Each structure stands twice: as C-alpha cells, then as structure tokens.
C-alpha cells in the first residue's frame, strides 16, 4: 500500500540558510499535517492543510511557511535556520482521521 513519502530523509544546513521539506500524502487523503519532534521530545503540531487550504496552525515560527499544491503534495519552507530548528520533521496525511499515517520523517540538522 502507498505510504506518505517525505524527502529528503536527511538534511544538513548551516545557520541562517533555508531548507525546503517535501511531503507526498497517501492518494485520496485530503488533509496533510506537519509536526516537529525535537530530541527527546514528543511531536509538536506545526500546520495542516485541508483540500489545499490551510486548516489549522500550531506553534510554527514566522520563519516557517508551508503550502499544499494542486497535486496535494506539501512543502515546508524554513528560512533563517537556527540551531534549535534541528529536529525530526514529520508529515502525516489523513482522510477525516481514518488512516492517519505518518511519513518516515526528515531529519534536519542545523550546524
């Protein structure tokens, strides 16, 4: 069965650089979510999209932005990266919470 695809799997950036994370949801899932999991922490909700429109926003810094495209894939853009942005970033997709599935995550390291 198709899963949620995230790319890249690993990313190393320097401080003040920009990073773009991509997420390809399960086909026909109408909602995409982004979560950030710091070392030793639980995942924290960042933002979600329903049918390509932003549906909810969590503790997402102003330096971050996201969008969902016509093919339903989503991108999380992170600018002016800080050391504290180093984390595992998960994308998940769902169809009215039925089959809420996470991708494998992108591990971002800021040096």
């Amino acid at each position, binding site marked *: 069965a198709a899963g949620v695809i995230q790319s890249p799997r690993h990313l190393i950036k320097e401080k003040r650089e920009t990073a773009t994370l991509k997420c390809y949801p399960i086909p026909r899932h109408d909602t995409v*979510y982004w979560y950030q999991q710091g070392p030793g922490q*639980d995942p924290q909700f960042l933002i*979600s999209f329903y049918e390509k429109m932003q549906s909810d926003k969590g503790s997402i810094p102003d330096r971050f932005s996201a969008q969902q495209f016509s093919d339903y894939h989503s991108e999380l853009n992170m600018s002016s990266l800080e050391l504290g942005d180093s984390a595992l970033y998960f994308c998940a997709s769902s169809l009215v*919470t039925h089959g809420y599935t*996470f991708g494998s995550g992108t591990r971002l390291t800021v040096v």
Partner: protein
Amino acid sequence: AQTVTQSQPEMSVQEAETVTLSCTYDTSENNYYLFWYKQPPSRQMILVIRQEAYKQQNATENRFSVNFQKAAKSFSLKISDSQLGDTAMYFCAFGGSNYKLTFGKGTLLTVNP
C-alpha cells in the same frame, strides 16, 4: 486546549509477559479519536491502535488492546506476550475535531529477554 498525560516515563517488562501503559487526557469535546503510536529507534511513527470515542467497545489489534474509560478520560494500552521487538517509545495521542494530534510525553518501554 487538549492535554495528554503519560505518567510513566519508562517501563520494563520481561519477554512473554504483559504490560500496561497509562494515558489520561483532558478535553471538552465529545467526539474525538485516541491513538497509541510506537516509535522504535528508527524514529518511524507507527500506529499501534486507534479508538473512536463514540465506540464503547475497546479496540484490539492482535497482542495490543486498550482500556478506554471515557468518563474517566483514560486510555491505557495493554501489550500481551511482549516481544523484544516491542521495545520502543510509545506515545498516546488525542485527535479532536480539527484532526491535529496532541501527544503525550511518551513512555519508553524496554522488553527484556
């Protein structure tokens, strides 16, 4: 806002034995979902079991079952016949009407041979 509390930061169990992980939550919503996720060292988030709040029957998935007490806002996970591969961090999560998940801090479960 919803909160999820896992009061056991770490637990251990002997292989083949049974262990129960605790989770309580707080919400004013009536319709919601509860989840247990497993996160092994690979850091993949793997859905273990899912419970709809409107269902009185406790969910089961093979060796995994839950004890859902809606009035008490309690959602514990029981793992029977524990296996070495069950060693992982387990997160309890609440999904409300806006569908985003709120996680507990996690319980690190170690299964000993």
